[in-house]
């Protein structure tokens, strides 16, 4: 976990392909048998989880750390942290946009 991750939402997946990212979003769907789910983070994001290590629940909010695919926009999740239910996703989206205005603080 030494490497830094870039904070993104659905709109920034394309410009960060192949990179390690952090993404906050609410789970819309999750298939426990395949480990593939959809997360709403200012748009839909497909996440692929390693089932032995992570499990997520629908309608809960998580922060995912993972890598965006090089040929697609799927996020392979390495680690996830559950956020409290009252987390304000609008503020989270705002934070994403501000983070990219002050890169010297983040990456």
């Amino acid at each position, binding site marked *: 976990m030494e490497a830094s991750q870039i904070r993104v939402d659905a709109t920034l997946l394309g410009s960060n392909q192949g990179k390690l990212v952090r993404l906050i979003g609410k789970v819309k769907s999750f298939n426990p048998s395949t480990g593939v789910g959809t997360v709403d983070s200012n748009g839909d994001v497909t996440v692929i989880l390693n089932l032995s290590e992570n499990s997520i629940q629908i309608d809960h909010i998580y922060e995912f750390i993972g890598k965006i695919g090089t040929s697609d926009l799927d996020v392979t999740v390495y680690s996830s942290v559950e956020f409290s239910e009252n*987390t304000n996703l609008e503020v989270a989206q705002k934070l994403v946009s501000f983070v990219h205005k002050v890169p010297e*603080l*983040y990456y």
Partner: protein
Amino acid sequence: MSDFGNYGGYGDGGFSTDVGGGFSTDSGVNERSQTRTSLTPVTIKQINDAHQDIPDGEFKIHNNELNMVSFVGIIRKVEEQASGVIIKVEDGTGSIDIKRWTDKSGSLSEDLEKYNQELNKYIFVSGALKSFNDRKSIQNSVIYPVTDHNQILYHHLSAINAHLKAQGVTNKSSQPTNGLFVSENDNSSVSPEDLVFNIVRDNSYSMPSGVSIALITQKSTLSNAEIHFICQNLTEQGKLYQGSDEDSYLCV
């Protein structure tokens, strides 16, 4: 404070500006600046990038002096040492070690267990930034788990805010001088009623006899009849009241 000698000048009844009574701006320059002890919200990257101009001096990053810092991060490793525990925390921008000395009341294993429970969870940390052998660490730290994760978002926003203020970027720099009333010039998104109300409110102070309909017409794109109608409505709602004549209105 060599200027103290100048107090003798008071005996002559002179208060010349040169003497300054020891509080002249010149005398302050040579003194060591006082250590800033306010708590600065930061990202871990800022801590790692901070540098000291002189050994044991203040840490500096982007014009900002760091002494007491606060940050949020996830505990990734808890390590046992003879005298305490070392907690490795990372926030996506970097990682840093926090040293916790074992206090008398608790044993080392209790501390280890306590922090191991928080492994891979977010914590909030505040403490003094110190460096030893070129390795930075946080001492005298206060650590508690984050239960409301909005705190993480707000911490990052306040870190950005503190950073921008240190760069001299002030809030609403695009607003003209009278930026207190944000909606004043932004006519596009305001309803006609609010628009009229805002104009009357902003001008009431300088026009004690009432803001005339003619002025409102001038400042808005509304017609005379519309403004009459709106003003009457607003009067009925108790927001405006009649000025010195029936063509002018005031706001409380």
